[in-house]
């Protein structure tokens, strides 16, 4: 039976869909289609919600039109379809007639659209992080901020005390589930006889499965982590470990000693997750195995995630968090005298929070994403302006056509429609080409940004947004030329007395706008390049080339580091070897200094490195006072180096010989003062730092000499294998590790270079078109001038000086904007270049040169022409 729909709660189908059908559906099926689609629509509203129903309606409308138009026989094809056909034909003819004009437009539009779609796809991907969890908007991560305890420039920490999560759940009914979590990198997992090194080893409570959304492959999710020694692994990890996924009950051994039983397998987490779990152990079980307390409010080394009951006000809950501190942390001030505050953060923000230390996974740089988005819009704008400019400039050649049309009876609205269709044709052809280009470009782009970005060509939403993008581009760039063309008075138009260049003011403003964007981009890119150049070539205080480093995690080798060091020293081509706790570009440990006679409440944090006798020489650190560690004089653990900042922070007048407590429980004497060096990235200030002396840490740095580094590396590996290690041999070049800290900036810089180039190219395409038009309009004037004796250079000047003026104005607008923005960007670095007048001058010169060549080429051809050709026909 037919469905009766109560008129009161009827929702109307999308107007767009109905309009499409009414305009383009063949008449014999219009009624059928309208009825059927509406009935399906009303069903979908109840089943899938309004938005999905709307989308389905529009898709079906397209399907109907497509099938009836192309596969069926469109009988009583509507007037609109007939007009559309006619308009398309006319537009196509007009576009084909002016090939160079069409080509200029296509090139500009395609480049703009490719960049725009590429960036949109990429940023959408980045902003989609963690949005797939069912409870997404209710999941909260807890971080803390320690008053006064700054580490690497921030006092926020992702790690909180272990009892925090369970206590929150107990105290607040608004909290539904809570889990503690921990993460380990570089973990040895033994499965039967095989050894794997895993970076994504996590531990958590059973609640984790109620907070985040996982898909299950095997096992019972309700009891995944109910046993102390249970472990859940991901599907791909299971295949890697066992070669199959029905592995419940199998045993894996972690850290060479703790056995866990696999209780389930989950589907691999999506790529757009802040952290991706490969192995998940029972939190409690792991803590017991490692003999750690779980009730210690003074030790922050674990993560906490909770989910809130629906409808909970996050702000209100946040205000009540201090109650916990008052009630449980009986000594709210921890061992180091730090006061902590806990903050609830929605996980949608987590992926972009850069200033939280020890995060569970590296965060993304939202700033560079915004830069990309900005650039994408700018390039699209330039491309759009090109179209407007070229179309209005060319309009004057079409006045006769318009005149005839009007005389025959065309209305203004019909003309507007016709020109809009012409724009639409151009835009959609460009879109089609862009998508073809994109499919080729996407893999290269993915590997460049090191992320798997894909376009789902199956998805209707993708095509719909492409459609909308096309419509928006058509309207924004086509409406002005269309209005302008349709406005011509037919008599004037036919007499040919519509003034050439009458509307050039508007075009000039658009050109200025285009070049403002280009100039701003070129300036931004130069400052970016300058700063990166500065980082690459700066004196960091230590050498970086010819150094290979190994990270030794093997417990047995760690016990005999000195033997390993001596063994490596014997390799030919190795000039020096050093063992240390940190590399000089990232000294991560941080300790409050303690020395005999220290006032009780004086806290001075020092970044701490543990090094051997050769460290200072190998990295060529400079000693400004005293001496380096000396094997003849100093005993292990008994000597100490400070950097200049440390001496200043401690306020010691005569530091040499003073005592300081070490990590090893005894006191050491200061033997020398190091010149300040950049022990963190240049985003951060140089901090007070101390070096302890001990020959037993995990980093081995090897200084090479000579050219044959491949041979040395091979011998290094051979020596390493002699120790029968559990971990496979891995090495890094120190320069690469150093560069890694600036990878995001380098990527931004490289992209910015490409985009700037493209922006200038597009703007120049437009400029070329405008110059061509201008020359054409003044060809007679040029002819007369030449006959009267003007030189080629005078004519060049005459035709180009307008453009030069526009460019100068654009530059004057762009320079302060670029200065302001880039100054803000540079402030993100503690050490940076100053913006230089020379940079601006060079950028201006480059722009003038490029624009000059573009305009000059076109005008030169006109200037050297024989004036007779220009003047003979009238």
């Amino acid at each position, binding site marked *: 039976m037919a469905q009766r729909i109560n008129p009161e709660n009827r929702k109307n189908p999308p107007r767009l869909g109905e309009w499409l059908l009414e305009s383009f559906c*063949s008449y014999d099926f219009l009624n059928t289609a309208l009825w059927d689609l509406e009935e399906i629509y009303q069903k979908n509203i109840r089943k899938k919600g309004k938005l999905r129903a709307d989308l389905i309606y529009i898709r079906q409308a397209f399907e109907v039109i497509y099938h*009836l138009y192309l596969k069926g026989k469109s009988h009583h094809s509507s007037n609109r379809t007939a007009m559309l056909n006619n308009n398309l034909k006319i537009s196509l003819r007009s576009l084909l007639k002016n090939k160079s004009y069409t080509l200029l437009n296509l090139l500009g539009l395609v480049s703009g659209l490719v960049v725009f779609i590429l960036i949109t796809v990429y940023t959408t991907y980045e902003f989609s992080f963690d949005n797939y969890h069912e409870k997404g908007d209710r999941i909260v991560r807890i971080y803390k901020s320690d008053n006064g305890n700054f580490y690497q420039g921030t006092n926020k920490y992702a790690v909180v005390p272990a009892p925090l999560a369970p206590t929150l759940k107990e105290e607040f009914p608004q909290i539904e589930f809570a889990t503690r979590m921990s993460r380990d990198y570089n973990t040895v997992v033994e499965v039967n006889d095989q050894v794997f090194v895993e970076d994504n080893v996590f531990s958590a409570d059973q609640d984790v499965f109620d907070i985040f959304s996982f898909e299950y492959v095997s096992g019972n999710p309700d009891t995944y982590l109910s046993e102390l020694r249970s472990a859940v692994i991901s599907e791909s990890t299971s295949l890697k470990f066992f070669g199959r996924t029905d592995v419940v009950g199998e045993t894996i051994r972690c850290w060479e000693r703790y056995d866990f039983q696999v209780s389930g397998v989950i589907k691999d987490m999506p790529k757009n997750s802040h952290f991706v779990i490969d192995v998940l152990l029972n939190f409690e079980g792991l803590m017991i195995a490692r003999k750690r307390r779980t009730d210690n409010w003074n030790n922050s080394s674990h993560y906490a995630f909770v989910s809130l009951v629906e409808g909970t006000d996050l702000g209100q809950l946040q205000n009540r968090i201090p109650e916990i501190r008052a009630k449980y942390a009986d000594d709210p001030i921890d061992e180091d005298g730090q006061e902590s505050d806990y903050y609830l953060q929605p996980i949608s923000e987590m992926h972009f929070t850069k200033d939280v230390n020890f995060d569970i996974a590296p965060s993304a740089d939202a700033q560079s994403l915004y830069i990309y988005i900005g650039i994408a819009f700018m390039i699209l704008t330039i491309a759009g302006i090109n179209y407007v400019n070229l179309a209005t400039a060319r309009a004057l050649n079409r006045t006769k056509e318009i005149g005839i049309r009007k005389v025959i009876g065309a209305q203004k609205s019909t003309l507007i429609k016709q020109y809009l269709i012409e724009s639409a044709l151009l835009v959609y052809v460009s879109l089609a080409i862009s998508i073809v280009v994109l499919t080729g470009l996407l893999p290269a782009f993915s590997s460049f940004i090191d992320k798997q970005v894909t376009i789902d060509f199956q998805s209707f939403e993708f095509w719909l947004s492409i459609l909308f993008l096309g419509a928006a581009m058509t309207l924004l760039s086509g409406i002005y030329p269309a209005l302008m063309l349709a406005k011509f008075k037919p008599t004037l138009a036919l007499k040919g007395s519509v003034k050439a260049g009458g509307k050039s003011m508007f075009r000039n403003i658009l050109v200025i706008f285009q070049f403002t964007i280009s100039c701003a981009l070129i300036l931004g890119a130069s400052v970016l390049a300058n700063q990166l150049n500065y980082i690459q070539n700066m004196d960091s205080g230590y050498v970086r080339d010819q150094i290979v480093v190994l990270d030794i995690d093997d417990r047995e080798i760690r016990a005999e580091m000195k033997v390993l060091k001596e063994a490596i020293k014997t390799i030919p081509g190795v000039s020096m070897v050093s063992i240390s706790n940190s590399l000089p570009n990232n000294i991560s440990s941080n300790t409050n200094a303690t020395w005999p006679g220290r006032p009780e409440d004086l806290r001075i944090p020092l970044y701490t490195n543990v090094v051997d006798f050769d460290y200072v020489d190998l990295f060529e650190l400079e000693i400004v006072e005293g001496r380096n560690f000396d094997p003849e004089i100093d005993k292990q653990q008994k000597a100490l180096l400070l950097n200049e900042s440390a001496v200043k922070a401690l306020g010691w007048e005569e530091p040499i010989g003073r005592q300081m407590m070490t990590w090893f429980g005894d006191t050491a004497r200061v033997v020398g003062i190091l010149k300040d060096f950049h022990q963190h990235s240049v985003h951060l200030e140089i901090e007070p730092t101390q070096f302890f002396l001990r020959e037993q840490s995990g980093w081995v740095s090897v200084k090479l000499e000579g050219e044959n580094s491949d041979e040395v590396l091979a011998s290094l590996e051979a020596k390493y294998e002699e120790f029968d290690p559990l971990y496979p041999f891995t090495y890094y070049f120190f320069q690469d590790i150093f560069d890694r800290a600036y990878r995001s900036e380098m990527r931004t810089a490289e992209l910015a270079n490409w985009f700037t180039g493209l922006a200038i190219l597009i703007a120049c395409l437009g400029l070329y078109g405008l110059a061509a038009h201008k020359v054409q309009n003044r060809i007679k004037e040029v002819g007369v001038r030449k006959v009267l004796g003007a030189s080629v250079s005078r004519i060049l000047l005459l035709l180009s000086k307008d453009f030069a003026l526009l460019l100068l104005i654009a530059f004057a607008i762009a320079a302060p904007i670029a200065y302001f923005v880039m100054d803000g960007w540079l402030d993100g670095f503690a050490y940076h270049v100053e913006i230089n007048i020379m940079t601006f001058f060079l950028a201006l010169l480059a722009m003038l040169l490029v624009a000059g060549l573009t305009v000059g080429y076109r005008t030169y051809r006109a200037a050297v022409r024989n004036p007779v050709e220009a003047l003979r026909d009238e």
Partner: protein
Amino acid sequence: MKKIILGAFEEMVLLTIGALDTNAYGVTIKESLEAQLKKRISIGALYAALQRLEEKGWVDTRVGGITEKQGGRRKQYFDITKEGVFALYKVRAMRNELFDQLPERKMQWLKG
């Protein structure tokens, strides 16, 4: 006599219209076809098939009664015509005849 050309999809559509008797219109045809074929059918493809069937004179259209209004729209029904039933019959007869020519040896497979 006119030659009968009936595609597989058209035949399914025509059969469904016949089976639905007086209640065959876009949505019901689509839904019962989807239930039979166990896959999604594009409504556009259905219309194209209906259009061809109508052109061949195998279905007729009929506008729904006055009560069946939906936001001012009238519903359009499809009925199978005499010629339509005849065409279905001819097609089936032809197919049966061919099927009967399958050797006994191969028919055995059906029972196995």
